[in-house]
């Protein structure tokens, strides 16, 4: 089914996708405008003055764990990969479990950026600078992925097929969303995240219910039909459909799960979200509640994926998109029965997901640029709060424009490689740095820098010489083959390297007296918390 055919199936009028998307844009803009009125201080802009309740933060945290790539790719992964797709969905839930371990101590540091958190443990500006560099790289990669998907989805939903249409959509949607982040700050971003969770969850549940009703509300029938349309239960409900039945394929599946579990747990915008909680225990409660919510969500996603396999069959989904990213739209178009309502709702859900994810990433990157690099490293905290907020708004715009430019330039690149690299970098650099900083007495500044920069180099090398970049039809450069690393997902190798580098760097260097004092002070802070707002 082509984009035009899908659109034609949806009809026009008040339920037309374009009308609904415009409505989403207007409502989101008004929300950001209202929320942004009080953003006069750094604490207001980046952390909503740490005023978000546990329930609201849980919803927003849940929203942070549903990026556009997850919304679109998990349905396809389950529909095409069967058991493999389901195990990846379970890994996504486990990612929040990892965050639950870290949420309370992270919030208790009283800092809201990665650089700030690392600097609370190490003396000197190198830690803050390195944290900011890694944050900006991760956010930039994820922004390119999200904006590319945003452009493709918008063009697909609107039925625009011409050359360069997706790029034009990327520019328009990207600039629109970035301006939302500049206006709304954390309050606006949180309101959109909460709205997104409600819309997306409702959409996925509605799709599952419609699909289940076609199977006479019998889950067993749905499972049998899904397997029957995808090569039989013997292969569909066994591992191996995503990466093959070889040892390398098995390790690739494990590596993908490691990437999802560890990479999604400490993304920069998630760290920013945790810091917006009222206190450490509130952050823990929000994470715990988010685990329950995200479990329900991914359960519904798995059901939707099985519905897609049962309704469409793996062949139809793979012929439209070999990676299955359009499965959600295909399912909605098929189940819509000519009314167009279901397809429009799915289009709105995808659009609001893009909007909130990009807003969160932009905010996290601008926090690192404005607060870490400009205010703390360059100006050494000499600027006023108002000036820092203005710099932050400018940083949002600059970062957004650069991201949009890169998304348009790299539009033909495989987004899978970029997303995989960003997640692996988060798991290999940010996670070890945070775990060691929070819990290991012997961690030194050298160890920290080795972890952050060493992991960056390691991830870049493994990714560049892996099958995600060359040597396959879905690679970044499909016509060339210079890969020697066998795994498409590099986290299985890069995460241990990240931890080893931090350990080795710390063993081979000497802890300064200042760092020992800082560690002793941090130990009290991590347990009892820091008075809010005086230590940003």
């Amino acid at each position: 089914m082509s984009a035009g055919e899908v659109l034609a199936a949806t009809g026009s009028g008040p339920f037309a996708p374009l009308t609904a998307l415009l409505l989403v844009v207007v409502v989101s803009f008004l929300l950001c405008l209202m929320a942004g009125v009080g953003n006069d201080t750094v604490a207001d802009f980046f952390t909503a003055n740490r005023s978000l309740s546990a329930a609201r933060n849980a919803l927003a945290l849940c929203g942070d764990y549903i990026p556009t790539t997850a919304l679109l790719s998990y349905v396809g992964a389950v529909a095409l990969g069967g058991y493999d797709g389901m195990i990846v969905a379970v890994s996504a839930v486990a990612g929040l479990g990892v965050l639950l371990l870290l949420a309370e101590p992270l919030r208790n540091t009283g800092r809201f950026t990665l650089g700030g958190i690392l600097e609370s443990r190490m003396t000197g500006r190198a830690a803050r600078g390195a944290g900011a560099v890694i944050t900006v790289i991760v956010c930039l990669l994820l922004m390119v992925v999200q904006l590319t998907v945003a452009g493709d989805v918008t063009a697909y939903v609107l039925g625009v097929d011409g050359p360069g249409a997706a790029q034009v959509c990327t520019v328009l949607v990207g600039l629109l969303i970035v301006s939302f982040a500049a206006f709304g700050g954390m309050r606006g971003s949180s309101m959109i995240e909460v709205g997104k969770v409600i819309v997306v969850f409702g959409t996925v549940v509605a799709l599952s219910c419609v699909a289940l009703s076609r199977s006479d509300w019998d889950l067993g029938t749905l499972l049998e039909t899904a397997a029957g349309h995808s090569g039989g239960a013997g292969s569909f409900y066994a591992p191996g459909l995503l990466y093959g039945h070889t040892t390398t394929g098995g390790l690739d599946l494990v590596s993908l799960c490691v990437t999802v579990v560890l990479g999604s747990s400490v993304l920069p915008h998630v760290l920013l979200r945790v810091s917006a909680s009222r206190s450490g225990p509130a952050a823990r409660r929000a994470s715990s509640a988010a685990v329950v919510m995200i479990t329900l969500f991914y359960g519904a996603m798995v059901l939707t994926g099985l519905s897609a396999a049962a309704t469409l069959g793996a062949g139809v989904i793979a012929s439209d998109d070999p990676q299955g990213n359009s499965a959600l739209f295909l399912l909605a178009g098929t189940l819509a029965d000519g009314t167009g309502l279901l397809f429009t709702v799915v289009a709105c859900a995808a659009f609001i997901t893009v909007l909130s994810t990009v807003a969160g990433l932009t905010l996290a990157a601008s926090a690192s640029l404005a607060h870490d690099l400009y205010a703390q490293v360059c100006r050494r905290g000499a600027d006023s709060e108002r000036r820092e907020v203005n710099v932050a708004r400018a940083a949002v715009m600059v970062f957004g424009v650069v991201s949009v430019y890169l998304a348009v330039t790299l539009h033909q690149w495989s987004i899978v490689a970029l997303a995989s690299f960003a997640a692996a970098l988060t798991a290999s650099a940010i996670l070890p740095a945070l775990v060691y900083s929070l819990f290991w007495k012997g961690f030194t500044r050298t160890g920290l820098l080795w972890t952050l920069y060493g992991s960056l180099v390691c991830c870049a090398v493994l990714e560049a010489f892996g099958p995600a970049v060359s040597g396959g039809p879905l690679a970044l450069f499909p016509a060339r083959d210079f890969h020697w690393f066998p795994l498409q997902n590099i986290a299985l190798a890069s995460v241990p390297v990240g931890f080893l580098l931090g350990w080795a760097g710390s063993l081979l260097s000497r802890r300064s007296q200042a760092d020992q004092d800082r560690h002793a002070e941090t130990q009290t802070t991590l347990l009892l918390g820091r008075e809010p707002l005086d230590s940003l």
Partner: protein
Amino acid sequence: MPLQDRPPGTRPPEAAVALNHLRRASGRLRSRLLALNLAAVGVPLLLALMLGNRLATTVSGPFTVGMLLLVTGVLTLVAAALWYDRACRAHCDPQADELRRRTPASRAAAGRRP
């Protein structure tokens, strides 16, 4: 001076003992949560590597061994998350509140901008 630092040969102050107790309790709960999370994801992954197609063996109707494993894993994750929060509320939060109340000096020290 941070609560746990003391000159050699002196008895630890009451607050430092309470802080160490809180640290141990918190670490213990965190270790258990980590073990449960590891088991919830690690066991299905390991079995997927070891058993292969045997995971598609049916248990009841169209439900397979693999599905049973995944559902058990997810339920473990949810139960562990709820248990952890509840245990922290019962064992750690009251101690932390008590420490904050008893040692206002530590709050001032902790709140100092580094």
